[in-house]
């Protein structure tokens, strides 16, 4: 052997051997000390888990109306958090009692967080006031698993008034949660949803050390919270209030917007709901109840209600007619009805309107005149113009959930029903009935486009203007717009909307009464419509009003519109 004949190596190897022995003995004693001598206290430390990760809530941006009202804000509130890594099931009953919950309820609440890592504490009770937490704070020593955290609660001071526009926040879905790092709430509807990335801040993180009696020893900031940005939206608080009040008991919607830049001054859908109750995690029952409430208050009728537009569609038909060769002097005679294909299509005036020009037909809302326009130009000349104005397409309004409505074409009918397009379908479409469906925001948007001679704007709630909010331009001659606007002006000066003539404001508009079948009983109901704009020259507002079961356009929609125009007349400055 080599080392036997070389004693120098042998001693060096022995030296190393001694080092190894020494180190292993040290390790042995160290592990013995940690695991046997101090094992019990480390075991305690592990079970009580002395380190916690705490979320420092970021502030979600405040939402203001254009006139400075706070529409969404925060109020100080506290959450009771459960630290599930130290929580043991046998303690469930005692903790539930302490918190004033049933054991089943607490178990359900804990179960919601199955996918959240155990070391992250989760809220089991939320929205407590300072006086409510005081007794809990006093007894926290007995309940080391729970602690109290400041958790500002989103509040909507005006309740239902802005529910459909501002929206509300709530628990993220599994998909939404992927972009979050903390247990944050996200926008679920309206502005809160569409501008969630701007409004929502980024929560911070803090690690804290607590001792075995739940007293906090040390703390360290891991990540600073970043607050969300505030937003101002273009809604006018008093106008919104006025529209809601005057819509009253009716189900329906009001949309007021600027034909200059697309900003929305009022958007109301009735009935409405209180968004404040939807932001809570543990109020599922109320939410379920809301979903089955008569009238479906969660539905935003202004952008999701698809209605036949009735006579408010006639100005568009007139534009299509002018485009297809008719002139302002083209006359048709109304005898109270028109027979086509062995069927009589009626005018609302059974005596008949006699001979009418295009403008007169708009003013008196003569069905027979527009039946004749339909027969003359045909559906193939009508629907492309309607499509250019955005019928059957989303307006692109900056809140989610908008519906498209429906623009029927022969091809569509064949595809959907398997039957061909009949001349009668054209006639029905010409008076805004049949398959045609529009949302109130579309009606307001089309009215605005007529008012501004064909510029298609994207209706929006965010208070900004510019090219971004222009969709395009309808390619029709200015004189055609002038003709149709003259007809709409005549509606107010001497036609179906004469009730609006006394305001001292040059208003143009169009009334509408549409029939639709709704609900399980398939009962026919009348929709009361009004669309209009003012002033006729260089318009500043365009509106659409619809009231379900509101009778004729003149019965319900026109008086509501009258209040809105009156407000506009008295507060012109606010609309600048």
């Amino acid at each position, binding site marked *: 052997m080599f080392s036997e004949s070389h004693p120098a190596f042998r001693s060096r190897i022995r030296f190393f051997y001694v080092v190894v022995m020494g180190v292993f003995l040290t390790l*042995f004693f160290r592990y013995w000390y940690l*695991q046997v001598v101090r094992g019990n206290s480390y075991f305690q*430390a592990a079970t009580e888990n002395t380190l916690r990760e705490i979320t420092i809530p970021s502030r979600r941006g405040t939402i203001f109306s254009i006139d400075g009202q706070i529409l969404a804000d925060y109020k100080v509130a506290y959450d009771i958090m459960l630290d599930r890594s130290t929580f043991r099931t046998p303690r469930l009953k005692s903790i539930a009692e302490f918190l004033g919950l049933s054991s089943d309820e607490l178990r359900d609440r804990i179960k919601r967080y199955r996918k959240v890592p155990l070391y992250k504490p989760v809220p089991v009770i939320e929205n407590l006031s300072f006086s409510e937490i005081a007794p809990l704070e006093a007894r926290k020593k007995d309940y080391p698993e729970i602690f109290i955290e400041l958790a500002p609660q989103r509040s909507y001071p005006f309740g239902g008034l802005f529910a459909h526009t501002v929206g509300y926040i709530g628990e993220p879905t599994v998909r939404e949660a992927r972009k979050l790092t903390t247990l944050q709430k996200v926008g679920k509807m309206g502005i809160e949803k569409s501008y969630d990335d701007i409004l929502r801040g980024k929560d911070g993180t803090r690690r804290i050390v607590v001792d075995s009696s739940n007293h906090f020893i*040390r703390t360290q900031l891991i990540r600073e919270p970043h607050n969300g940005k505030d937003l101002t939206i273009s809604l006018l608080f008093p106008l919104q209030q006025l529209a809601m009040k005057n819509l009253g008991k009716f189900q329906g919607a009001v949309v007021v917007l600027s034909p200059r830049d697309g900003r929305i001054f009022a958007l109301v859908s009735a009935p409405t709901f209180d968004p404040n109750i939807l932001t809570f995690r543990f109020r599922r029952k109320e939410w379920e109840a809301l979903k089955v409430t008569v009238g479906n208050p969660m539905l935003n009728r202004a952008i999701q209600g698809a209605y036949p537009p009735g006579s408010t569609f006639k100005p568009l038909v007139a534009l299509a007619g002018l485009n297809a060769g008719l002139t302002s002097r083209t006359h048709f005679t109304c005898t109270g009805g028109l027979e086509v294909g062995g069927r009589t299509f009626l005018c609302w005036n059974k005596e008949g309107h006699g001979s009418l020009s295009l403008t007169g037909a708009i003013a008196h809302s003569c069905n027979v005149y527009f039946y004749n326009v339909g027969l003359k130009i045909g559906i193939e000349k009508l629907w492309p113009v309607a499509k250019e104005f955005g019928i059957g397409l989303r307006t692109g309004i900056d809140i989610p959930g908008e519906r498209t409505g429906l623009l029927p074409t022969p091809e569509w009918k064949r595809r959907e029903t398997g039957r061909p397009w009949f001349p009668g379908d054209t006639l029905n479409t010409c008076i805004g009935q049949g398959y045609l469906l529009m949302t109130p925001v579309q009606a307001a948007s089309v009215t605005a486009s007529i008012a501004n001679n064909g510029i298609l704007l994207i209706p929006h709630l965010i208070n900004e203007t510019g090219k971004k909010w222009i969709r395009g331009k309808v390619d029709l001659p200015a004189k055609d717009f002038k003709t149709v606007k003259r007809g709409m002006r005549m509606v107010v000066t001497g036609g179906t909307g004469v009730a609006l003539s006394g305001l001292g404001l040059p208003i143009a508009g169009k009334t509408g009464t549409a029939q639709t079948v709704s609900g399980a009983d398939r009962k026919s109901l009348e929709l009361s419509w009004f669309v209009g704009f003012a002033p006729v020259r260089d318009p500043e507002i365009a509106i659409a009003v619809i009231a379900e079961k509101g009778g004729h356009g003149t019965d319900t929609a026109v008086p509501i519109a009258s209040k809105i125009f009156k407000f506009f007349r008295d507060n012109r400055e606010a609309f600048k």
Partner: protein
Amino acid sequence: MKGRFDFPLFLVVILALILGMTTLSSAAATVKGGETLISRQLIWICIGLALGTIAFIVNYRVWIEFAPVLYSIAMCLLILVLIFGSTVHGSRSWLNLGAFRLQPSEPVKLTVLLMLAWLFKRDKTSRLNFKSIVKSVLVIGIPVFLILLQPDFGTASTILIMGAGGVFLLGMRPRVYLLFFILITAVGFGSWNYMFKPYQKERVLTFFNPERDPLGRGYHVIQSKVAVGSGQLTGRGYRKGTQSRLKYLPEPHTDFIFAVYAEEFGFAGVVVALIILFLIISRMINISQMAYDKPGMIIAFCTAVLLFYQIAISTGMIVGLLPTTGIPLPFFSYGGSGIITYLIMTGLVLSVFWNRFQRV
């Protein structure tokens, strides 16, 4: 000849592998893709056993003849990894070779070992002369330097210590030791002030008093101490360690794997593991004493030094005895390049024992 295969060493290595796989199968459960980690490690172990067998069957003296070639290839790989390598945890230490990834710094340990043996295979002195010292320093220094560039502090220190162990075994004059001491102090002082990254300084600093900063740098040490301590005498049971389950331990499948073991099997388990690991090292030391020639002695001794260093750091770090440098525990930690290297080294040491009476 009868009794020439060293069953004791073979047996304790197999036992260590079994303990290691058991712990890994618990630790991997908390890591992303844990299932595949376990099956992959099993494949690596099989490859390692096969290569170790080959290393054993082919006489270690044959391997030494190839040392310069193997060493050159390894240095090329280290340069390649600096250029084409992929970065994991901030160091560029992996080569993508299509089907699998290689961490060249692990096999480099093996080639440095063989290279030292090759350098002194005909050396008859019991002390290194100046020329030999320069040669050894170069053989050790080049890979250490290249690995520091990655930068992989842990592996570089492993090779440095193994090489230093070899140089110590071969012997130097007392005044050369003194010279080295002064040099190292100066280099250490210089690099502390000019070369070390702040996080490396932090690690060394908190080593002295981790408890003063429980939420920052000392966090991992405290958490692993809690894990080890809470194991108490008998452990919390296989797959029942709360510290590792709740992800308080960083890298539970590599650097902190012994904390998982200590938490789940307690002091009793730790004693068993320490005895097994101690037996591996002491048996290798014995074999180095029994080696027929100088290269055989170097191979067995340096392997013992390498394993000892990694074991001491990895088990000492988690209980706050040594700074957290991120060195894997041989036979326990996940990692293909590592386990294959250790098993080939074991094969070589077994070959040294097998050929202990044999002339070339």
